[in-house]
């Protein structure tokens, strides 16, 4: 198989450091992985190409990079699967949302700082047991997925929030936080959930599912973030705009069978939050003038009673 890899290069020691693309023509076996191609370049064509790799088995998490614009592990990406039918170049770039150190090597410093920030260690209370801390199997099963995380940074690379706000803890660190909040042996939920409820925490996720899509290990970081939101609300953190929004939307579906768009922003910001309510006025006026103001009293949904009964039944059982 003949392939062209178009690799984004960057040399910080160049006279005028600037990223550029370099094309490499390769002849590879049909079953070759992208990493095979990159190693071949480094060993046979251009020894200056910098990349991180180690296990070649999707375990060490070293070789996450963007392939045709999407984060993947180079070692478990078959070139044949990403090469276009018309033999166009496969575009290989360093992971996103991280500073590029050289070529495909990025700075994982902020990544690890955020993982450390969620205190990724067990914090049990009470006297230390004589032997190990015990946990029933069934209570640990839901953590199996999140424990599969290999910290490759693919989710961080393609996170749409980190693209605009480096303060966000990000999917990897938040998935790690869930791993401890959900651990029956851990007793630090109160302060963990309190911290995660702050700016940069669980409520800043957009639910865009990029992390779910690109995670090579099925960790589903976004689903963990949603579980953390639920746990935070259950723990009494109900005053954030995000929590209020979730509460108001759910109540709206329960009572009207639909989203009550006119009241949702008011309830999300807090009925008596005068400053925020006033800030929304210009938008409201523009919406009104455009004929896009949602009805103040939404039409009655004929299925309203049925929906309400379902709410009662399902919620009561839980």
């Amino acid at each position, binding site marked *: 198989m003949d392939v062209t890899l178009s690799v984004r290069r960057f040399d910080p020691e160049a006279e005028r450091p600037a990223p550029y693309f370099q094309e490499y023509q390769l002849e590879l076996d049909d079953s070759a992985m992208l990493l095979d191609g990159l190693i071949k370049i480094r060993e046979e064509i251009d020894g200056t190409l910098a990349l991180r790799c180690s296990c070649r088995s999707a375990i060490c998490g070293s070789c996450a990079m963007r392939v045709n614009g999407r984060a993947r592990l180079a070692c478990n990406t078959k070139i044949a699967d990403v090469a276009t039918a018309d033999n166009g170049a496969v575009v290989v770039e360093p992971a996103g949302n991280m500073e590029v150190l050289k070529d495909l090597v990025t700075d994982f410093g902020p990544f690890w700082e955020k993982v450390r920030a969620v205190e990724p260690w067990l914090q049990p209370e009470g006297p230390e047991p004589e032997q190990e801390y015990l946990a029933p199997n069934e209570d640990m099963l839901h953590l199996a997925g999140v424990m599969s995380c290999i910290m490759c940074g693919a989710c961080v690379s393609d996170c749409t929030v980190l693209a605009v706000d480096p303060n966000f803890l990000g999917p990897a660190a938040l998935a790690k936080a869930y791993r401890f909040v959900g651990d029956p042996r851990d007793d630090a939920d109160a302060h963990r959930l309190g911290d995660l409820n702050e700016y940069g925490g669980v409520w800043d996720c957009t639910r865009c599912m990029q992390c779910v899509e690109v995670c090579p290990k099925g960790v589903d970081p976004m689903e963990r973030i*949603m579980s953390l939101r639920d746990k935070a609300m259950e723990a009494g953190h109900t005053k954030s705009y995000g929590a209020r929004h979730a509460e108001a939307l759910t109540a709206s*579906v329960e009572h009207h069978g639909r*989203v009550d768009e006119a009241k949702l922003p008011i309830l999300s910001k807090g009925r008596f939050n005068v400053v925020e309510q006033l800030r929304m006025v210009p938008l409201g006026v523009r919406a009104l003038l455009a*004929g896009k103001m949602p009805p103040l009293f939404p039409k009655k949904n004929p299925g309203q009673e049925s929906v309400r009964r379902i709410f009662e039944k*399902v919620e009561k059982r839980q």
Partner: protein
Amino acid sequence: MRYAYYPGCVSRGACPELFSATEQVCKALGIELELEAMRSASCTGSGILQEKNLRLGDTLNARNLALAERTGLPLLTICSTCQGVMSQANKRLRGDEAYLAEINADLAEEGLEYKGTADPKHLLWVLVEDVGLDKLRSLVVRPLEGFKAAPFYGCYLVRPSSALDFDDHPERQDALERVIEAVGAEVIDFPGKTLCCGFPIIMSNEANALKMVARHTSDAQELGADAMVTPCPLCHLNLDGYQPQASGIAKKPIELPILHLPQMIGLALGIDPGAMRLNRHMTSTKKLLSELVLTP
């Protein structure tokens, strides 16, 4: 072609123009919409209710799918978020018989049962898979030549791909670009087309949401787009409603009309722009329509 029609909350709230445009376009394409049987359908929960209670979300969606199933018609949606949330629920329901049986036990008292046969389809997919691009092309009376349209999908219509049947329907991945071409317009490809518009965090982190609006609208505008076209009314609300703030963030004027998918198709089918309420957007479409010689 007849479909059980699920218009969603927003097309009957903040985006009435989407509702009218869909009705007109479907009529012109020979698509009959059965709304009456779906009137008692509820909101899908839009992924937010699911944060609090996934089981409840799945039960509500099973109820909606059962209502559609009862009509014996395929189900049509017009919102990326409705479509995605329904597809995800449908995957869980169809993939686990025991789970479906439990959910059906709750639906039984409502006189409903979901057999697992509903296959909700967004209008965008219906255009490509059921109507067909050739037929769409043949119905175009006013090719949108010279119109440069930037596609914007909405997260739920692209991810997670496992719930959206991309394996069986690879054409869904670039359906929007193909439809833009089919009506004679030019696709302005840009990196943000499958990313988040910021709407889900407009309440919880407005600053970040507005940065997303600024990035996508200014990127598309810089690449020469005359407008953005989206199959998601929530993306429309965010991208259309916050351009004054986005201009401030991007430090340059942004004025990019955000068209709903059926509005663009309607223009090519010769439908009056006023009838599709193109004059009722927050970001004016006046200049765009006059350039296309389509002033309402």
